[in-house]
């Protein structure tokens, strides 16, 4: 029987499905492509309608007694046609089982109008029963509404693929994949008060440990943070005015301190003063790319970087205040893109700072892939820019010169993007969106798929 599913990690739902697909179809290269279709079935099975159907049927027959009735079922709720049809059929079956026969109104001893309605917390099913001359009765049942869910939707050409990683009610600031085989097997989830470690066991995420973040001052609104896997210990955590490091030995705890030290803008492996960025980028020859280390100071009580860079981009040690940054290595220099708080994108190459109004959102980052020109900038944007309640989308761009060229279709999210960070492995990014319908935060891995 279908089970109600509330606030589960997306992977908990998807993992068994994907495992089953892999088992059944060994040659299947992209099981997630089928998940959207399977998701429809999961959604349809998300709620158990049997119990309220039986309760309502019993209440109706308690009024009418067994016999002939004229039945009408109306949908006044947000339920889709598919669910409505399922419920309508279920109600008819259940009413039939308790002794009602369905006839036309002129042959009926009673007319029953069932309205499938809802309030903010429940589905409310109301039966308005009319018998004889003016005799009427109203009976009703309610059943809790599940949290909404949104199916992932991918688009083709050079496509940006969105893989669900985690969802929760508390804000997700960042997610780090700590171990993975063909898919993530251990993740860390950063929220305002803790880092939660999960590992995959038996096809479901199991909580391994919770590391509390100590901080003395209230966090800023629109809090941001980064999780950065470290080489000699598990990870570092960057939050406005606070930096934490996990202990290098057991027991695993977080040591947090007040600090305005700069945050790394790019994540990778230190390599003699330079950074081997994106070591596992899926390049054909397995080579990594080396670019200079770059850090930026984050305003301790705000939601943006101050613009101060270390060591800087060429002659520029400061740029306008910005929300996010992306890099594009060139033959002889690195082009940096900064999403400034004034809505402009600044392209800084070490010699010039060129401001452009690209209509992008405030989140951008870059990935190094085996697709296209090899580097893509992922940028957020409002799906409906004129609507301040718009959902966001993310699209990949390349920069043959200084003008962006869209190289993927936009991937839509169920709400605003609240975080977009490149993962340590470099060829993918973590995107976090707040689902406007459910209010929950959803973290996804974004990866490019070539030649589609």
């Amino acid at each position: 029987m279908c089970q109600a599913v509330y606030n589960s990690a997306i992977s908990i739902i998807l993992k068994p499905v994907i495992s089953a697909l892999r088992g059944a179809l060994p040659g299947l290269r992209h099981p997630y492509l089928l998940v959207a279709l399977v998701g429809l079935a999961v959604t349809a099975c998300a709620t158990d309608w049997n119990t309220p159907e039986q309760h309502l049927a019993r209440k109706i027959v308690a009024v009418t007694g067994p016999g002939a009735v004229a039945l009408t079922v109306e949908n006044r709720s947000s339920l889709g046609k598919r669910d409505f049809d399922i419920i309508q059929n279920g109600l008819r079956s259940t009413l039939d089982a308790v002794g009602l026969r369905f006839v036309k109104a002129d042959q009926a001893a009673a007319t029953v109008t069932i309205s499938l309605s809802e309030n903010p917390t429940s589905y409310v099913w109301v039966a308005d029963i009319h018998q004889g001359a003016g005799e009427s009765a109203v009976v009703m049942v309610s059943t809790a509404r599940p949290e909404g869910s949104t199916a992932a939707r991918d688009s083709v050409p050079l496509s940006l693929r969105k893989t669900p990683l985690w969802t929760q009610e508390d804000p997700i600031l960042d997610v780090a994949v700590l171990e993975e085989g063909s898919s993530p097997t251990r993740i860390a989830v950063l929220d305002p008060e803790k880092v939660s470690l999960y590992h995959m066991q038996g096809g479901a995420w199991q909580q391994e440990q919770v590391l509390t973040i100590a901080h003395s001052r209230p966090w800023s609104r629109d809090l941001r943070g980064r999780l950065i896997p470290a080489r000699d210990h598990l990870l570092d955590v960057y939050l406005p005015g606070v930096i934490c490091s996990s202990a290098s030995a057991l027991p695993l705890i977080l040591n947090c301190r007040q600090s305005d030290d700069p945050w790394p803008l790019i994540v990778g492996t230190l390599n003699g003063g330079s950074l081997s960025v994106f070591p596992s980028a899926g390049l054909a020859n397995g080579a990594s790319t080396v670019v200079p280390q770059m850090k930026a100071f984050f305003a301790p009580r705000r939601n943006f970087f101050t613009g101060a860079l270390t060591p800087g981009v060429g002659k520029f040690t400061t740029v306008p205040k910005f929300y996010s940054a992306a890099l594009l290595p060139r033959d002889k220099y690195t082009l940096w893109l900064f999403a400034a708080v004034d809505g402009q994108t600044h392209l800084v190459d070490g010699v010039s700072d060129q401001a452009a109004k690209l209509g992008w959102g405030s989140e951008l980052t870059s990935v190094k892939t085996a697709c296209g020109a090899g580097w893509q900038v992922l940028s957020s944007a409002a799906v409906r820019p004129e609507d301040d309640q718009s959902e966001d989308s993310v699209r990949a761009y390349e920069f043959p010169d200084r003008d962006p060229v869209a190289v993927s279709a936009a991937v839509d999210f169920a709400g605003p993007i609240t975080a977009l960070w490149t993962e340590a492995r470099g060829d993918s990014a973590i995107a976090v969106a707040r689902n406007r319908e459910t209010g929950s935060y959803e973290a996804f891995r974004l990866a490019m798929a070539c030649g589609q």
Partner: protein
Amino acid sequence: MKRFVWRWLAVNSLLMLALAAPGETRPQYGGTLRVTMRAAPTSLDPAENAQSDSFARRNLTLLIFDTMVATDDSGRARGALAASWQASPTNQRWQFHLRRGVNFHDGTALTSEVAAASLRAGNPTWNVSVDGDSVVIERDIADPEMLGELALPRNAITKRNSEGNPSGTGPFHIVDWQPGKKLTLAAEESYWRGRPFLDGIEIEMGRSFRDQMTALELGRADWVEIAPEQAHRVSLDTRRLANSAPMELLALLFTRDVQTPEEKSLREALAWSVERGSIRSVLLQGAGQPAGGVLPSWMSGYGFIFSTNADLARARHAREQVRTIPTWTVGYDSGDAVARLLAERVALNGRDAGLVLQPTSASTADLRLVRIPLASADPWIALAGVASVAGAPVAKNDGGSVEDLYAAEQAMLATQRIIPLFHLPVTYAASASLNNWTPRPDGSWNLADAWLGNGKP
């Protein structure tokens, strides 16, 4: 060929970008929001009950003060000043554990003693005590709605100084207060939920809807109220208008209980005579929803079950049970532009059924046309609030089902103290620079999360 493809892609991308509107999605800090409102409260004390309830007053309270518990858009309780809580199995004893590290705007710490004193002052019938860092509330009867009660702005936690002025823990603190005229607020830097994006808010009070609209059009206000019936006329981009869910009940309220069977028949005749559909189309210009019940359907889930159609035959039949028809006066608020028209229309409908009704702006009347702001998105609390205003028996939730709620609402309507007419939304308009400003379904503002696009970070 490859070069051609790149050029084609570049041209298309640039064209697309040129057409794109600014897409910044991350909130910006800074700026002062200018708000106007029709209400003119003379006190900011949440527990002060000499002033009438209004959405404006509730929202002012929640800019300055916090409640123990808050509710989300679905009506579910969320921790606020109380980080956690426990209820006894009978829902008679509730224990609330206070959040640590919260300070009042005067710099003093929130303590369980202060919170208990604040709740005691506003709810004399509650037994409120302190247990360490927690507050304990005990009731004589089961109170499953306690969380919803504590989320009401009137139960916001207040600390009064020696002069009796209230201090809060909310996202903004008071910079200047001219009662009934102007309120200036500044962001609380160390607010426990994070400093608001806005630097400050300036609120001008006692402004008519027309003045407010003019102020918005002239760029002198960023956030204004709109009369629901005027919303369609607003010469604005409709994307800058926002409605709450229908949270205001427009109703006829009798000032006394039914005294005789004849009076009962006449009230029934009046209820059947009102043509809500045409009133909505003409006078309310399509705003709101006809109401046959007290609670809107979105809140209860069953509101549609109450008929809203006029039935002149039934109205006349009920009226014919009575030989002598008294003249009823129908009071309305003379400051409410549409109220007089509504009262006159109701009188006209009543006349069609053989009733005699006389609209009046006098303070005394046999029945009044009233706007009742529903107290909460929680249907039991909303119903109790209307019952209190109507002088009807207060329905109490004993942990009951939606069917119990329906029975309680039916019981209230059966007193014939109230004839529901419409459920109306609260409507606001905002300037183009204001972001993330949409009011919540219950009409409450969320200005701590709003931000100005041209603010200086």
